């Protein structure tokens, strides 16, 4: 099951390595990880999405996260109400397929065209993770030159 875990940490070097090594040392792959400063510049917020096969191990990882000296709080959003967003940027080859698809997608309001020329077209989408997945499916018809995504960020209700 996918878990979304938020950790507020001290904003200093080495903290990311400590946090990520808790997962890697147990052979857990992090699905996504987003890090950024909070309103308090001494605190960073890490949003970690991880697929846990064994809930007991995840429980242990959360405790270990809490135990890290640089970690201030840990919050597992999984069974809580929260808002999530992920941003993707996609560079598409500017051909006919692309044109058609963009027209429908832009109409739906799911994507925004940022730049367009005769060779390529760069678009962005910002939404919940499952909607992003849907958009990606739609875009499959076009030729994707490059795709980057931020990983999920979340905020509790």
């Amino acid at each position: 099951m996918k878990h979304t875990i938020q950790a507020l940490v001290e904003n200093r070097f080495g903290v990311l390595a400590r946090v990520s090594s808790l997962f890697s040392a147990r052979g857990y792959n992090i699905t996504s990880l987003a890090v950024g400063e909070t309103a308090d510049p001494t605190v960073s917020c890490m949003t970690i999405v991880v697929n846990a096969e064994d809930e007991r191990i995840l429980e242990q990882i959360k405790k270990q996260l809490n135990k890290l000296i640089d970690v201030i709080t840990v919050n597992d959003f999984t069974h809580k109400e929260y808002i999530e967003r992920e941003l993707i940027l996609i560079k598409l080859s500017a051909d006919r397929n692309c044109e058609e698809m963009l027209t429908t997608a832009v109409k739906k309001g799911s994507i925004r065209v940022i730049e367009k020329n005769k060779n390529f077209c760069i678009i962005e989408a910002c939404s919940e993770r499952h909607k992003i997945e849907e958009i990606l499916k739609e875009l499959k018809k076009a030729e994707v030159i490059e795709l980057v995504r931020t990983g999920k960020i979340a905020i509790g209700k």
Partner: protein
Amino acid sequence: MKGSRILIESLLKEGVEVIFGYPGGSVIPLFDSLYDAPIKFILTRHEQAAAHAADGYARVTGKVGVCLATSGPGATNLTTGIATAHMDSIPMVVITGQVKTSLIGNDAFQEADVIGITRSISKYNYLVKDIKDLAYTIREAFYIAASGRPGPVVIDVPVDIQTQEAEFKYFDKIEIRSYRPTHLGHPGQIRKALKLIYQSKKPVIIAGGGVIISGANQELLKFVEDTDIPVTETFMGLGGFPSTHKLSLGMPGMHGTVYANMAITESDLLVSIGCRFDDRVTGKIEAFAPGAKIIHIDIDPTSISKNIKVDVPIVGDAKNILEQLTEGIDESKIPDFGPWHKNIQDWKKKNPLRYETSKRGKIKPQQVIEEIYAQTKGTAVIVTEVGQNQMWAAQFYKFDYPRHFLSSGGLGTMGFGFPAAIGAKLAKPSQEVILIAGDGSIQMNIQELATVSTYGVNVKVVILNNYCLGMVRQWQELFYNRRYSGTPLKNPDFVKVAQGYGIKGLRVEKPENVKSAVKKIISSNEPVVADFRIEEEENVFPMVPAGEAINRMIGGMA
């Protein structure tokens, strides 16, 4: 003030009396400041030994041990010692030199990523990049090392930071918003725990290393005498409760006593205090105390429900929680554990720790330990290496006092014992310190004979010499058809080796000479290396085969 002086002044403020270490290119300024500082510097002959000696110093005193080495190989040589301390929750501050800040990351001469290397084997680590942070970093490092669940903290100090100038400011208060260990037990949990005790018929207390770390031995004794619950002391907990007490069950687990393992298996309530349910204690998890409710007292929340599912967790310091429990007891509600005690007495009578005398006229290692126990009246600090020597010492010396048994429990580091014994003796010069070693492990840091000789450290080295790596050989004998792969040893003449370093050496080959030899060793007011030639194929029994249930012991069940 120069960075190197700031560092030394900070150590003095922390009350550091001894530093174990080894110099090198990246710590020359530091050593210069150390030269006329009122801190004793002990030069070991290998950085690993410096780390273990600081560890031994910390184990015997409860204070923070300090070691120091240069960048690169100096620091990497410390890592085994750091990991050893980390596994056993030993407070240590480890100072490493680093190449100058402008060169970090450039593959400079004697550069290693010490922060990266030690991240997973230390409680915390620092790279000091600004001279202004140095004094605070040291203050914080000592606080983190000694508080909560203790552990080693590494401070990596680039050489240019050591020579830069700054004002020395001592920080009285430490405030870390993200690190606040819990000290008092939650009152609701205390009530729940007492309720379980009132409902139990066959309770057992497991006393772990946390009892010793928190200094809770008196509180534990009081609690036990008020409740009449039998106690098993884990390997790390030996000395946390008197082994000679009538309610003591001795050590549980792989080489524990039959009665401790039987009592755990049959119990209906386990009260674990500062024990993390290591796999050497539990054996097969599914068969561990199958009918028992579990109360788990630990300062480290990650230890709780890690291996064993717990019914009543109590996070906090063992000493406080034991006091809270004792205060809360309603003696009229404590059940009569008489039938349970009788049960245990029967197991004790039927299955005592035992060994047979040699049919070949050889010395039995257990006899050596028993003799040392008898002649020191249980008051010596016993340090061990790792392997059979360690288990025989744990089984046959009776530990009545905390901080009298120093051994690498979690990591099982061969080569730990000898330098740790040196650190312990330097910390407590009036205390008899005896190292129980094997012929394999003593050779992992045998160069420390030079340290013993240089500083006249009066430790006694007892080598139980069976010409093999005995513990692995035992497994090969029992589970691998006696195929002794990689375990036979060709040893040097330990007596001559000792003499080569200017240390008294003696050899003992006959059981009838053990008593007089032990007397000679203990009465000597200089260090001694004693080579006891023991029965080669002697095994440590009882034994729970790896992965088996702890009541399935071989060798030792009646």
